[in-house]
């Protein structure tokens, strides 16, 4: 197992994500919150899609549904030919482990572990042998330029370094899909650019399908090839990024 350009995501054809009339409603007291309300869309393999919208528009909820972190109230989310609504909790965990890699605005590294241990964690869940794990972890951290910081804890690193480590972790199991929730939200513009360049590189060299949630239109226009706009849980616009 190596992280090279012969990645399975290089194959194109059937859509990586197909969403049909998807709803996610929450009951909050007596109020029904329609976080995602009848969204239908498709994402092709190798696409770089930005989900845009103001706060509370439902873009993070939609990302969580694609990640298999949440279940829809109705409708279908078909990722890599699996309807997530039909999967058991164990199967959803496997989906998150094998098919999807995630990066978050707040990095979400385990603060008590070193960088190497954080990156190694998905490999432990995937029951990869210890020797192989060490090599893959080193390779992943080298890829994001953190080979010298392996034994450091997240608190000893800058925000940019932490997000790079999170990227290495998302990459480690060679997922077909990278889901990024405001990946530059906590970073200054220079480090944000650095992170976005990594994401673009994964998309281009590994052929990973990228779905990125952001509220920064400029960022989406600079990197994404397609922009989907959400408002009040509904898809209001879906257009290719002509600048790309």
């Amino acid at each position: 197992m190596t992280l090279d350009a012969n990645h399975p995501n290089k194959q194109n054809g059937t859509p990586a994500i197909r969403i049909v009339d998807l709803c996610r409603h929450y009951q909050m007291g007596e109020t029904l919150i329609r976080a995602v309300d009848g969204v239908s869309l498709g994402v092709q393999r190798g696409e770089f899609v930005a989900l845009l919208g103001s706060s509370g528009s439902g873009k993070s909820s939609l990302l969580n549904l694609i990640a298999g972190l949440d279940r829809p109230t109705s409708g279908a989310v078909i990722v890599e030919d699996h309807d997530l609504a039909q999967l058991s909790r164990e199967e959803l965990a496997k989906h998150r482990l094998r098919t999807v890699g995630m990066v978050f605005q707040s990095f979400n590294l385990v603060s008590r572990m070193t960088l190497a241990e954080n990156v190694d964690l998905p490999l432990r869940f995937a029951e990869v042998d210890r020797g192989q794990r060490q090599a893959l972890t080193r390779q992943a951290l080298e890829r994001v330029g953190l080979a010298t910081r392996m034994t450091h804890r997240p608190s000893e690193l800058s925000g940019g370094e932490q997000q790079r480590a999170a990227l290495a972790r998302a990459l480690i199991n060679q997922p077909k899909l990278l889901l990024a929730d405001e990946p530059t939200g906590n970073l200054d513009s220079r480090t944000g650019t650095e992170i976005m360049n990594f994401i673009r590189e994964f998309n281009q060299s590994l052929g990973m399908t990228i779905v990125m949630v952001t509220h920064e239109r400029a960022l989406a226009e600079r990197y994404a090839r397609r922009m989907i706009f959400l408002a009040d849980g509904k898809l209001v616009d879906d257009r290719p990024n002509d600048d790309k």
Partner: protein
Amino acid sequence: MKTYDLSELALRNLRESSLRNSLTTIGISVGVASLVAMLSLGIGLQKLATQHLAKSGLFDTVVVTSRRDLRGFSRDDEQRSTASAAESRALDEPARQEIERLPDVLEAYPDIRFITELSYQDKPHLTMVSGIPDSARSNDAFTGIPGSFFSSENAPEVILQKSFALELLGKTPPPGQEDDFPVNELAKPLLGQELTMRYAQRVSAPLSAAGDAPKSSASTDPTQPSSHEGYSVISEEQKLKIVGISDLDPDSMRGAARARVFLPLKLAQDLRVMQPSDVRDSMRGFTKQPSYSTISVRVRNPKQVEAVEQAIKKLGFNTFSILDATRSLRQFFAVLDLFLGIFGSLALAVASIGIVNTLVMAILERRREIGIMKAIGASDSDVKKLFFAEAGAMGLLGGVVGVALGWTIGHIINLGTNIYLKRQALPPESFWSVPWWLVGAAIVFAFIVSLVSGLYPAARAARLDPVQALRYE
């Protein structure tokens, strides 16, 4: 997740909150220690009691009688027995040898006891004399006595029971009054002294007209009984040296026929002292071979008494043992152990609540971490196993430390008790026993209790919604 990775992660997590987890583990240790201490007390006491009882020779002994005599020791036995006296086997030397060859039988020896006259300083004293086998050397009645046990199996020596020693010295207390002479003081004037025993000797053939006793006791074929067969009784004397004085009665099972003078069994057999059974046999005409009234059979282990009894019954004899008494004793100790175990477990139960508390706190603290793990692919069972492993590790460690602690407490208390006993001029005893099975069982029990305590926290952690958990700060 692989077991190795699971253990590594669990231990890592435990190290992170070392103070809280150490306190919880100490809680388990105290629980296990109290359980081990309580149970080892119960086991120690049981061991002490059984050791003393085993030494008494009561619980590993089967008394064999012929069906010619008593059909049994209870009315029911007598009714069940259908064999007539004539059909039953004689309890003689061949029968004794046959019984001795049975599996798990250590020895079978005849109970030789007779009432006779012993003279000390020319004063005659009438008493019951009993033959004692060499194996009784370790009997409580003969260990630590003033003097010694018989020097050989047929030495012309006697051990006196305290009451007979008092009688010889003319110090018998008035009836209804307890004697309070220390046995050591009685021994001083008596040890090494000589007694003369006058007894009736049975000789195998009838006396000739001239009244000479035949020198040999060659037996004829017992399958050809003759109504003219018989034996003679002559008066004999035997000088005996007093070698020991015993305070206890070695033969309390047959209390009605307590002997006060003990001879080496081999000597008693060689003397061919007339037995009460000889008279009875002569009435019935079974006089060819002398028979024994009872044979005592020592069994290797009290547990095998029942099997040996059955085997002897198959040979055609009646048997009696006080197995029922051991059974009720075992029952008593089982109940005692149960209660001690329950009291000991109470501390462990409290400790298990500590585990639940620690793990629930850990879930609250590590809520976000659990969310992260789930987001990157941990399954519910991975999270559950991780919390289980943490609970199990605390239980295992607590169990090991607890056993060591319980063992130490036991030893300290035992030491203290023995210092007290020494001050009271009593012999030291071991009240505590920590067998290997208890060590293993206590650790396994602590481990299982911890896993059970981890059930709820682990299920709770596994159920955690990752979206909610990731929002948690």
